[in-house]
């Protein structure tokens, strides 16, 4: 059952990645050009119909997928690198490094992420750079919070003490003792955070502080087409369902991984 879910998830995720990579090839129309009648229904205008400006929904979703996946992956890579490095450093150095980093992370985390992002983006103005930086900083605190205790547990192990008794340097500790043992948790957490980042960027774009028009990610597409639903059109549901498909497939892979390596589930 779990294995079936895993294979299905891998297939779905691979398909989504391919669709995003080859969007310009697959998409039948340019995403920002009016090619159909406004609010054309599926069949009448393109595979999934058209939006209020007559732009092709299917093509816009393919390009939206690029934004959603691209931003989520970039954010997760930046955030994991920052958060994990700081977590390892804090666990290893302890003392003031640990206390100050812990305080800072607590403070950032004591405000709901979306609220924090709204405040920062309101001031900084929304651009791809500010968006990704803001999300990466907020996400890195979650990496920190999960990985610091994991690293601290490893540092407390006798085999790390054996390395200390030998007189190894910092590089050896981080790369040879801590990282290999933290890797399973780190990989699982990376997966969880990707799926969270997808929801996060979609939420921000839905609120209007994400990817700016005329470009649109999946969340932005929902926002653009929100009004259509009250007249009985399903068009905003397609990009939203696409978001759910990404998170479901990522969660399915993570779930299998966590089970396989029997990692303590540490939900962020």
């Amino acid at each position, binding site marked *: 059952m779990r294995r079936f879910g895993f294979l299905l998830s891998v297939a779905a995720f691979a398909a989504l990645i391919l669709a995003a990579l080859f969007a310009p090839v697959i998409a039948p129309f340019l995403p920002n050009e009016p090619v159909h009648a406004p609010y054309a229904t599926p069949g009448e205008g393109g595979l999934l119909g058209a939006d209020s400006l007559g732009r092709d929904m299917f093509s816009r979703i393919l390009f939206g997928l690029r934004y959603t996946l691209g931003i989520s992956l970039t954010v997760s890579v930046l955030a994991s690198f920052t958060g994990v490095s700081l977590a390892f450093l804090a666990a290893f150095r302890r003392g003031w490094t640990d206390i100050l980093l812990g305080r800072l992370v607590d403070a950032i985390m004591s405000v709901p992420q979306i609220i924090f992002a709204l405040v*920062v983006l309101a*001031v900084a103005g929304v651009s791809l750079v500010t968006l990704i930086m803001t999300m990466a900083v907020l996400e890195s605190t979650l990496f920190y919070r999960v990985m610091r205790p994991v690293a601290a547990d490893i540092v407390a192990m006798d085999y790390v003490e054996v390395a200390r008794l030998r007189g190894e340097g910092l590089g050896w500790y981080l790369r040879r003792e801590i990282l290999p043992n933290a890797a399973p948790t780190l990989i699982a957490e990376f997966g969880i955070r990707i799926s969270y980042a997808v929801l996060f960027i979609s939420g921000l774009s839905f609120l209007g*502080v994400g990817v700016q028009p005329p470009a649109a990610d999946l969340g932005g597409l929902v926002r653009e087409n*929100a009004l259509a639903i009250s007249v009985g059109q399903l068009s905003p549901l397609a990009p939203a369902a696409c978001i759910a498909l990404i998170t479901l497939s990522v969660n399915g892979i993570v779930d299998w991984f966590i089970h396989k390596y029997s990692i303590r589930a540490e939900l962020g």
Partner: protein
Amino acid sequence: MNLPSRKQLSPMRDFIVSRGVSGAVSLLLVTFLVFVGTALLPGDTASALLGQNATPEALAALRRDLGLDQPLLLRYLGWFAHAVRGDFGTSLASGRAVSEVLLPRLGNSLLLASVAAVFLLPVAVGGGIAAAIWQDSWFDRLLGFTSMLFLAMPAFLVGYILIYVFAVRMGWFPSMSVAPFFGGAAAWINILALPVISLVIIGQAHTMKLTRTAILAVLATDYVLMAEVKGISRRRIILRHALPNALSAILSISILTVAYLIVDVVVIEMVFSYPGLGKLMVDSVSYRDLTVVQACGLLFALIFIGMNFLADFLALLVNPRQREPARGA
């Protein structure tokens, strides 16, 4: 009975003092980060107000008027001193006092969140407990499957599906909370129904999963096994041996659920155009009405930090290990 003496109360007092201080430090740090962040990032209130094409002279004049030319720390202290008295300044967009704009919206949001919590908590906590007790039953599997589904869904998807089914197709409820806010209980129920159902559906998955995990952890302890070996009935084991020990976890989970609920409220308010604090904040972001954004952010942070404090405090209250000192007489 032995009344707790002054000395025995001290762990509790220690906790309140230490957590109170750390909560306050967090809040101070947050306000400072937000404030300094707003000051350091490119663009400021003046350029926000005047737009991209303002002349440097006009910008400088406005900055002087707003006090933006003063040192950062001084401005922060000034803002902070006013904020603690409930004075968040003037809305840049409407010119009204921020607190005046804020209060009715806060009331609406609290109403939405609390009604949602009243339905969400029993459903989610009860479901989690049941799933743990009947672990691996069809019920447990079903809940596992649905929570996996709902955890993957963006909040607005749930909202729009409900709108499509119950507002557009069935026509039972309005798709937007645009009805005037009077007209008695029936009108309120009408407006609140869909947003509340959305919040319950979104929030329950996480809470149920956490509750289930917490109960399973207790059911796997040696003392539950011991009770079984003693011949205690299953019913009594769950009610008397397991649940009390899971109580502190369940309390924390419940309160954190409410804290997260308040965040989900932001998105759901936008979906239903519900006139709450979240919608106010998002709208203010698009007008770049920074004083309102700042105040909303601070208020959300305050509620969130307060909830976390309450969760820790209640968890401690029901735990004898914390309540009673390590060594008695």
